[in-house]
């Protein structure tokens, strides 16, 4: 792409530069980082001193900029760097950020906004009201196209190993759209109810609310939407695609296998699942105890899979994978998990009464376990399975349950809360002990323990060491061994490669085995993990199998491309304050002597779901709930859009990046951000603009019409305490403008302006000031030392009344406006990576010959227009742009003739 001039920024200075150059016949590229051109001027109420309507006069300029035949505008794009190349040109690298909306297809109808489930502060209304994640910047936006705001992926969604859009279903639940929330989870897995109970909820660990009062109960919200769906009797809301005529066999019906079967069936494949056990569901159906995950819930989840045509055959063990291919299955997925319990390898292990944990849990879940009434049980192991076994043994009536593990309590692999719950249910923990022998003659009579001194070696490898001299004996009748699980894959050899522990060897990205049509995933590959991790692997396997069967390259690096995880620090900074919302307490009813397998965790009530989902901070802004995608009549929304890099060659550059407003919370004595009725000048301009959010001037604290309004001038300007000695030039005039508009809008209001002095140099400016004073604005010479908030939201200003002997006074107001000043836009620092674009002492772009050649920067061919070089009002910016573009045009001509 070749242009004559690159204009960076499309505020009034940038638009004016582009239009003048375009009118001269130069090809211009404008790069704007927001989704609309217009900068700050379009957001203002009126301009001073003429009181012309700012939007009426800037909208035509915005439209002209976009439609000019010589001007190309890239909105929602950023200049990453500009480099000088050899022949006098500049090479600009521009990042086109994805709008996630096809600009050509979007008509600006705003249906996506109506459908969007997320509200965040509206930066174009100075954060006074909210906007949606899917939004059109403001009514006069040019181009008037929607954009989906996705600064990052929400931590809850990003951290989910199953790829479930946690933020999405939370935001749908917040909107009361439980069925849609359920369907959103179905996009990833059919196991909604099971994960709502048995998931280890990494989403909650990542929840940004966790750094405030505590995370959202995200897992329980999922459980609520699942329960609501299953209780409603509403038929499944998703359908499989047209049958493709290809069949896939899935061996194993655990979370990985079932999820893969679901995904493949949705794509239109004929899927059959083979399960060796008498009950489907793998760990869900067999080993996770009913008090955590009732069998009916697993059955309901499996019902989803069957509803879209997946056949599940239980009691069918597959040993010969090749024969499946012969039966017409064009691909086979092995997801047999880790069904073998590791053994202790100590004397006495063969005694009656010693049993592997998985066998015990399975019998207990299927209601076939032997009564343990009156028995003393020892469970060996420190992981989650051991805890499940111990707590199940309590429920089967064991008089005493002792859990023995090598690790010290803090090192146990089981989740801390699970250990706590086991202890509350009367399990006795013996941590830091190994097993020397199981004692007994005909059956188990006791167990001999030896002190474990270390579980891991220096390299953190499992390598326990013991002090054989420290011993303890526990009397017991039953020993349940829960010291690990492994795959059962001997039968698959030599068809597939196996590791020493029996795990299958597959490509970690594509999950394809040595045999091209055989894939494997889940615990049979990874060793014992979490069910949610297995679900994620099942999804990946289904995607890869589909690519394989369609004869497409796997392109594994393109699988599930995500926007990077959002930084939680940025999330909390988005709002000045957050209301305090305590998390719900645990809904678990734990008793010391549990006697049955009733589910111990209570469901959330609808009110609790509403409250909890309302605590969501919408970290990634867009929740990926897909509502906009469904609502868009033009199918314009594509959430998988990626950033694009564009390189442009230009002969000259105009930097018109404008200014920033002083962040008023840096003057803490004024209380901005803490006191709701202290606002900034920009906020007042929004309250007065024709597109004002409340259609009148109201104070934010309680929506009352303010009677007494104070202005604090020079907030962040002429103030060494914030490092800015400069006058911002515009604050006096915009405040005087607002004074007049307020008196028009609220004829009864009293307006008082506290000043150092009033600076009104400019044609008609002083007359404008005199006019405001004549209309009744009260100007008081005196700096504000402090602002105090009263209980009714009113504010007391403390000041020194210079014109009355410097007396210290206080005055009460309903609303305080801080006339915030101008700050440099530091984005210009990075434009030329080599630092060749010089900045002045105040970090504005330096004009090296300010007196004689305004607009000229330290780099020949690069010019600065508008407030990027220092505070300017609108007419000054336009004049300055004229000066800059005249030089830019001369430079382009010089480059053209090779001078």
């Amino acid at each position, binding site marked *: 792409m070749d242009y004559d001039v690159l204009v960076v920024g499309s505020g009034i200075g940038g638009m004016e530069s582009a239009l003048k150059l375009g009118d001269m016949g130069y090809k211009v590229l404008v790069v704007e980082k927001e989704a609309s051109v217009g900068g700050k001027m379009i957001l203002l109420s009126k301009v001073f001193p003429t009181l012309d309507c700012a939007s*009426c006069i800037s*909208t*035509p300029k*915005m*439209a002209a900029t*976009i*439609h000019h035949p010589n001007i190309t505008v890239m909105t929602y794009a950023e200049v990453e760097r500009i480099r000088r190349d050899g022949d006098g040109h500049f090479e600009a690298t521009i990042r086109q950020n994805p709008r996630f909306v096809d600009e050509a297809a979007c008509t600006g109808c705003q249906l996506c906004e109506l459908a969007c489930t997320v509200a965040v502060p509206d930066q174009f209304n100075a954060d006074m009201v909210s906007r949606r994640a899917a939004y059109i910047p403001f*009514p006069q936006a040019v181009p008037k196209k929607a954009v989906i705001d996705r600064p990052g992926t929400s931590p809850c969604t990003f951290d989910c190993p199953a790829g479930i859009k946690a933020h999405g279903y939370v935001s749908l639940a917040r909107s009361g759209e439980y069925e849609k929330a359920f369907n959103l989870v179905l996009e990833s897995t059919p196991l909604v109810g099971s994960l709502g109970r048995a998931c280890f909820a990494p989403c909650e660990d990542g929840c940004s609310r966790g750094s405030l009062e505590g995370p959202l109960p995200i897992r329980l919200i999922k459980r609520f939407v699942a329960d609501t769906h299953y209780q409603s009797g509403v038929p499944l809301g998703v359908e499989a695609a047209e049958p493709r005529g290809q069949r896939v066999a899935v061996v194993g019906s655990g979370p990985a296998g079932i999820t893969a079967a679901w995904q493949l069936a949705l794509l239109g494949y004929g899927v059959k699942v083979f399960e060796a056990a008498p009950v489907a569901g793998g760990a869900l159906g067999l080993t996770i105890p009913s008090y955590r995950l009732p069998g009916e819930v697993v059955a309901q989840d499996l019902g989803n899979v069957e509803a879209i045509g997946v056949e599940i055959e239980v009691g069918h063990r597959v040993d010969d994978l090749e024969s499946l291919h012969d039966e017409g299955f064009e691909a086979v997925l092995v997801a047999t998990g880790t069904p073998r319990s590791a053994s202790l390898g100590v004397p006495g292990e063969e005694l009656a009464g010693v049993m592997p944990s998985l066998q015990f849990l399975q019998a207990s879940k299927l209601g076939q376990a032997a009564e343990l009434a009156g028995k003393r049980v020892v469970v060996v192991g420190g992981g989650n399975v051991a805890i499940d076994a111990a707590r199940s043994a309590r429920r089967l009536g064991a008089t005493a349950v002792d859990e023995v593990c090598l690790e010290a309590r803090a090192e146990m692999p089981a989740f801390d809360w699970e250990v706590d719950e086991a202890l509350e249910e009367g399990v006795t923990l013996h941590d830091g002990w190994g097993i020397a022998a199981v004692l007994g003659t005909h059956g188990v009579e006791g167990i001999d323990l030896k002190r474990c001194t270390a579980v891991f070696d220096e390299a953190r490898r499992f390598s326990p060491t013991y002090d054989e001299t420290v011993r303890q004996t526990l009397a017991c009748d039953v020993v349940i061994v829960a010291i690990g699980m492994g795959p059962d894959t001997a039968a698959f050899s030599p068809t597939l490669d196996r590791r020493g522990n029996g795990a299958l060897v597959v490509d970690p990205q594509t999950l394809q085995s040595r045999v091209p049509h055989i894939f494997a995933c889940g615990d049979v590959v990874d060793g014992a993990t979490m069910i949610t991790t297995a679900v994620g692997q099942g999804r990946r396997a289904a995607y890869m199998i589909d690519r394989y069967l369609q004869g497409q390259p796997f392109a594994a690096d393109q699988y599930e491309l995500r926007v990077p995880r959002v930084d939680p620090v940025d999330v909390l900074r988005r709002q000045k304050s957050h209301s305090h919302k305590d998390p719900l307490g645990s809904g678990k009813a734990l008793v010391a002597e549990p006697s049955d397998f009733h589910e111990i965790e209570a469901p959330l009530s609808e009110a609790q779901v509403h409250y909890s989902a309302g605590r969501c901070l919408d970290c990634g802004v867009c929740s990926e709930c897909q509502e906009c995608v469904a609502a868009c009549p033009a199918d314009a929304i594509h959430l998988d859009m990626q950033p694009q890099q564009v390189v442009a060659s230009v002969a000259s550059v105009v930097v018109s990046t404008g200014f920033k407003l002083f962040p008023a919370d840096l003057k803490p004595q004024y209380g901005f951000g803490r006191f709701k009725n202290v606002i900034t000048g920009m906020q007042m301009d929004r309250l007065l603009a*024709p597109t004002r959010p409340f*259609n009148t001037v109201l104070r934010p604290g309680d929506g009352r019409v303010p009677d007494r309004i104070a202005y604090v001038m020079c907030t962040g300007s002429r103030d060494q305490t914030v490092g800015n000695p400069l006058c911002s030039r515009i604050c006096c005039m915009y405040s005087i403008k607002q004074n007049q508009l307020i008196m028009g809008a609220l004829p009864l209001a009293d307006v008082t302006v506290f000043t150092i002095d009033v600076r009104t140099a400019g044609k008609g400016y002083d007359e404008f000031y005199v006019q405001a004073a004549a209309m009744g604005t009260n100007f008081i010479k005196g700096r504000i030392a402090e602002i105090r908030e009263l209980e009714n939201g009113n504010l007391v200003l403390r000041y020194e009344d210079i014109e009355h002997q410097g007396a210290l006074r206080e005055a009460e107001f309903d609303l305080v406006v801080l006339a915030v000043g101008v700050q440099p836009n530091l984005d210009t620092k990075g434009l030329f990576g080599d630092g060749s674009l010089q900045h002045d002492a105040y970090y504005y772009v330096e004009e090296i010959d300010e007196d004689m050649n305004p607009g000229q920067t330290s780099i020949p061919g690069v010019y600065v227009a508008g407030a990027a070089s220092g505070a300017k009002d609108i007419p000054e910016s336009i004049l300055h742009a004229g000066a800059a573009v005249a030089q830019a045009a001369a430079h382009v001509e010089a480059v053209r003739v090779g001078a």
Partner: protein
Amino acid sequence: MAVATAAVESVKARAFRPKILVFSTNNISDPGIDLAGSSHMHYPPEAMTIALPCTSGIDPEWIVHAFERGIDGVFIASDGEECAYLTDCAERSARIFDTAQAALRERGIAPERLKMAAICSVCAESFVKYMREFDEELAPLGPVGQE
């Protein structure tokens, strides 16, 4: 607001409520009209809007066609002198306006059923005022084709 409500009540009380077609422009007058709605301002609900890039692209035949299809009044919400495309947009639009009025006269349709005014991107209030006035002016003319 009382005045506005009274105006709306007077329109409601009338048997004949003229159908008004508004031609707006994407970037300038349409946001202004949109703002009237989003600010909850009241104007006759029989007005409907079609947005175009530029009023100078209106074919006079469209206007005739609208009246033949039962529209009682056509309002062109133009950009005035602020068109983003053409410096002579206002003159062109004026010529289109004249041509259309002549065509209406030929067909015996009252030329005052066609009206044009500049509406800026935030001119919600003036748009509402125009709509109310136009509605009042059209009422005595009765439905199109029955003059």
